Structure formats: C-alpha cells, structure tokens
C-alpha cells in the first residue's frame, strides 16, 4: 500500500519529469524546419505534454507546468524578450483548453486546435501591446490557419498517448 505522502511524492516527481520533457520538446522543436516553411509557425510539441497533464492531473497542474516551461525555456533558449509572449500564450491556451475539455462532444483534437489558436491569439495580442501597433493583429488570420494544422498534429499525438498508456 502506498501512503498519501508517497503518492504525492510520486506525483511531484512525475510532474517534474513532465516539465523537463516539455522543455526538451520546445528545444527539439527549434530543429524542425517548420519555421522556414512558414515564418513564425511551429508545431507546438510542448502542448502535447500540457494536454497530457490536463487530462491526467487537471487544470492547476497544467497551468503550472506550462508556465514554468514558458519561463525556463525563455531563459534558456528563447531569450528574456520572448518570455512575455510564451507566458501569455501558455496561460491563455491552458484556460481555453480546460474550458473546452468541460464541453461535451469536443474531443482531444478539438481541444488541441483551440489551444493552438488561443496560444497564437495571445501572442499576437502581446505583440500588439509591446510594439504599440494594432496592425500586428492581422497576423492572426495567417497564424490561425497554421494553428489548425499544428493543433490537429498535437491532438492526434495526444490521442495516441492516451490510447496506449498503461493505467
């Protein structure tokens, strides 16, 4: 029998590993040349971890993991300037994905697409504020279409994970 203390220790260790995995994925992502095919576009591999945590551990863990990942990967790979973008993107997308998860009929792919779209929307909004130019908002049309494909990809991977994991 596991005691309650052991159980929560296990949880902490596992969530630490998942945070590390999310950071590794956002680093690996920089080697996948999606960015040169579509400027500013990326797959959002780290979102796979966020969705996994959201489905298995709930909202508060998903938020904390993606916020920690956003700040740490910003410090390590993206530069301090990138932190407001990834921070707001992470928070907004987790909130929307949690709400979407509560709606019956929306599957994981739908959650992932909404998450990817919200992530882009939040980042474009941050860019508007930081650069003081509302015209940047026009990027959302273009990024929104990319987010459908990226979201479908991460959603399908998340379903594979969900269907194959041992309980």
């Amino acid at each position, binding site marked *: 029998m596991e005691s309650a203390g052991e159980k929560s220790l296990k949880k902490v260790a596992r969530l630490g590993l998942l945070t590390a995995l999310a950071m590794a994925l956002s680093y690996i992502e920089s080697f996948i040349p999606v960015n040169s095919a579509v400027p500013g576009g990326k797959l959002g591999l780290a979102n796979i971890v966020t969705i996994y945590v959201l489905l298995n551990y709930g909202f508060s863990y998903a938020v904390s993991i993606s916020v920690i990942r956003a700040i740490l990967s910003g410090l390590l790979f993206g530069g301090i300037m990138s932190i407001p973008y990834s921070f707001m993107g992470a928070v907004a997308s987790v909130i929307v994905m949690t709400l979407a998860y509560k709606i019956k009929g929306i599957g994981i792919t739908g959650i992932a697409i909404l998450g990817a779209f919200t992530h882009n929307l939040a980042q474009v909004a941050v860019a508007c504020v930081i650069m003081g130019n509302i*015209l940047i908002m026009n990027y959302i049309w273009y990024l929104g279409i990319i987010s459908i494909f990226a979201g479908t990809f991460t959603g399908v991977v998340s*379903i594979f994970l969900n269907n194959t994991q041992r309980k």
Partner: protein
Amino acid sequence: MKKKFFTPLDILIAVIIFAICLSGLVLTFNRGGEKIVIQAEGKIYGEYDLASLSTKSKTVEIKTKYGKNVLEIDCYGADMIYADCENQIDVKHRKITKAGESLVCAPHKVVVYIDGKGGADGVSR
C-alpha cells in the same frame, strides 16, 4: 477508454476557425497600399509613399538599441533582407505589398507595415 481521433464538434471547430481566418485574410489584405511605415520601439522611424518610390529597390537601415535591420523598399512594397536577431522571422517573411500587411521583428521592436488609409489619395479612393 479509447478515444476517437475526431469528433464532429472537433471538425466543426476546425472549419469555423479556418473560415474566420480565411475571410480575415481576404478582407484585410485585399487592398492596395499607400505608404510604407517603419515603426521602431513604438515610434515612427520613417515613412515612404509608395508612389514616390521607383521600381528599383533601395535599402533602408533601421538601427535600434536592440540591433540592426535592413529593409529593401520599392514602389511595390517592402522586404526585410537582413536582421541581426536570433529568430529571423521577418527576414524569412515574404515581401509585403498590400495594405495591412506587416513585417515584425519582435526582438528589436521593429514593425514595418503598409498603410492604406494615409496620404491625400487615400480619401479619394
């Protein structure tokens, strides 16, 4: 529990987002531009009327405290050809030619966009 890859609602979400974005693209970018505006660190850095530019492109250097960008402009639009930033998103971005389109260099806080409303001719059009 095994989960399906797509539920009908998922497909609906994808279609709605696609429709909104596509109409947004068509509505915003389907206008002719008037002038190229360069904005750096929130201030106007330079403005160039498209009509006053020739077909031969000229380069404009944009220097901020964050770094340097080089922009190529002609009477058709603007293209970022060099930036000493890390992500190079603005350099990879295709040339902008229509009103509402923009080139953004987030690390340098530089925005280059084409304005459709400005200029005396904007009113009569």
